[in-house]
């Protein structure tokens, strides 16, 4: 019997050590994640300005989100941003990764240039592009004029070009990460597969389609999931370019969440928008996991 008690006691000390090591992150999990998450969901069913009393309003916030014309526009803007940015990032990232890893000893040299915007803050990148896109002083517009386009647009103020222009800025900044991840994936592809394909007389295009892309598909899925999540949360550029006066066609959903929460102090309403954002991200990620069976190829 003494042995059983001993084992029990040892298990209990073991468990106590487990909780001890976990304590700092467990406090964080409860205080800064689970607690706020529950509170946010409660808030989304409430009306509250942060000071007075909180009142339960049922689904009013959730219905209100769809009755707000600006928010309807903002969802569209955000979706449009994602639809342009994510494929743009993945395709240009793959394109340059494919060639950069062929550069041999010069790969790290080229990588410096492509990765430099990645270590620069979005605010500094924003300031550089605020300049490059300003019609009065833009070297880009000047170049376009010299190429025979008489009236290049005021990129950020023109409702049709605002989102595409911000997409270009974000691709310029995000490209380096894509290249690094794709190069890592490409280096995992065994050269013997390529040599076998060469012996069989496969063309470069066939090798790309039949070997490279299938073997890279887990990397593509990972980057696609994380990029879509990031892209739906775009905020920094918008706020830096426009401060609080973004034109209706340049609002994104997070820009509006910040606006409703921290300028108008409609905490409940802003929380409801954030709940929708969460649900949309969950759905998009879930769909990609479901669709992966059709195209993602795992070697193990």
């Amino acid at each position, binding site marked *: 019997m003494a042995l059983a008690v001993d084992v029990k006691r040892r298990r209990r000390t073991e468990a106590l050590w*487990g*909780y001890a*090591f*976990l304590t*700092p*992150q*467990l406090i*964080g*999990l409860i205080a*800064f*994640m*689970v607690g*706020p*998450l529950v509170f946010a969901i409660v808030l989304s069913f409430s009306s509250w300005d942060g000071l007075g009393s909180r009142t339960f309003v049922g689904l009013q916030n959730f219905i209100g989100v769809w009755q707000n014309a600006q928010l309807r526009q903002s969802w569209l803007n955000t979706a449009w941003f994602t639809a342009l940015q994510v494929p743009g990032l993945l395709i240009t990232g793959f394109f340059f990764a494919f060639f950069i*890893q*062929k*550069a*041999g*000893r*010069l*790969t790290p040299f080229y*990588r*410096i*240039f*492509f990765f*430099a915007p990645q*270590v*620069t*803050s979005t*605010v*500094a990148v924003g*300031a*550089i592009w605020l*300049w490059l896109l300003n019609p009065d*002083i*833009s070297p880009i517009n*000047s170049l376009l004029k*010299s190429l025979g386009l008489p009236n290049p647009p005021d990129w950020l103020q023109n409702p049709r070009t605002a989102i595409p222009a911000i997409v270009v800025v974000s691709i*310029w900044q995000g*490209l*380096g*990460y894509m290249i*690094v991840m794709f190069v*890592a994936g490409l*280096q995992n592809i065994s*050269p013997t597969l390529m040599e076998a394909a060469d012996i069989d007389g496969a063309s470069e295009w066939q090798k790309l389609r039949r070997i490279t892309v299938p073997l890279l598909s887990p990397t593509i899925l990972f980057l696609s999931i994380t990029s879509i999540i990031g892209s*739906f*949360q775009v905020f*920094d550029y918008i*706020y830096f370019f426009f*401060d609080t006066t973004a034109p209706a066609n340049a609002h994104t959903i*997070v820009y509006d969440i910040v606006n409703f*929460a921290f300028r108008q102090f409609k905490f409940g309403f802003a929380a409801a928008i*954030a*709940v929708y*954002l*969460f649900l949309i*991200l*969950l759905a998009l*990620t879930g769909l990609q996991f479901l669709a992966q069976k059709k195209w993602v190829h795992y070697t193990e």
Partner: protein
Amino acid sequence: MTSSSSEIAARDLEAARRKNASHGLRGGRFKPSWIPLHLLLVAGSLAMFVPFLWMLFSALKPLDEIFAQPPKLLPKLWQPQNFVTAWQGADFARAYFNSVYIAGLVTVLTLITCSMAAYAFARIRFPGRKVIFGIFLATLMVPFQLTVIPLYVIMGQLRWIDTHLALIVPPALFNAFGVFLLRQYVRGIPLELEEAASIDGAGRVRIFTTIILPLLRTPLVALGIFVFLGQWNSFFSPLIFLNSDRNFTIPLVVNQFKGAYSSDWTSLMAATTMAALPMLLIFIIAQRQIVQGIALSGSKT
């Protein structure tokens, strides 16, 4: 010789790099197919680099040269005084200090708390281990915008609004991604190492500090780079939680500068250069570690 998975991963990376290097430039012999390849890569590199040059040289121009048509990259008259104007226009010295110490402190604390939790999840048996770990993973899906409103209220209750505590404590005490990343590596450390130490009388704390932590070097460096960069460049949280100038970090100062000097483009570019340059220099010096760190952090999720 025993080796951890992290060492193996690092060695594989190194081998792949070497193999690739010899693959591309076969003994340095020239191949005509390199010409289009390098033309393309040089063009791409220029597209990435010219905006930075534009920033730097614009910061050195007198204001009237900005409006020259067509725009010129190099200044006719060099005017480094713009940097003095920018330096005096906002409290850059304090902002540098704030950014360095916030990012540094968050990084160190994150590495400590995450490696502790990773060790618990990977090696210690306790009731609820699987469930709690599942919760950690599930939170990776929650967008920050959903929790930031309650967090703002909590920070208000704690009287942490407009203090750096609001920027340091939450990320240092909770980083599910870091816990997950490090747990993967702890699981790769051979159990025999711990058992041997345990027979020699080492307790959990000794094992953690003398065996586990040293073997986690590679992923800790990777996670550290990832966290530091994210904190250094962070704009959203400081914007929400800070109000007074003296607490501002570098991104907030640049944002404020843009508002105050909206037509003084040359000073704005000088301020932007001062904001971007330290990280760019560090990156050029330590580019391989930084790139591998980022790749490692990404590939394990």
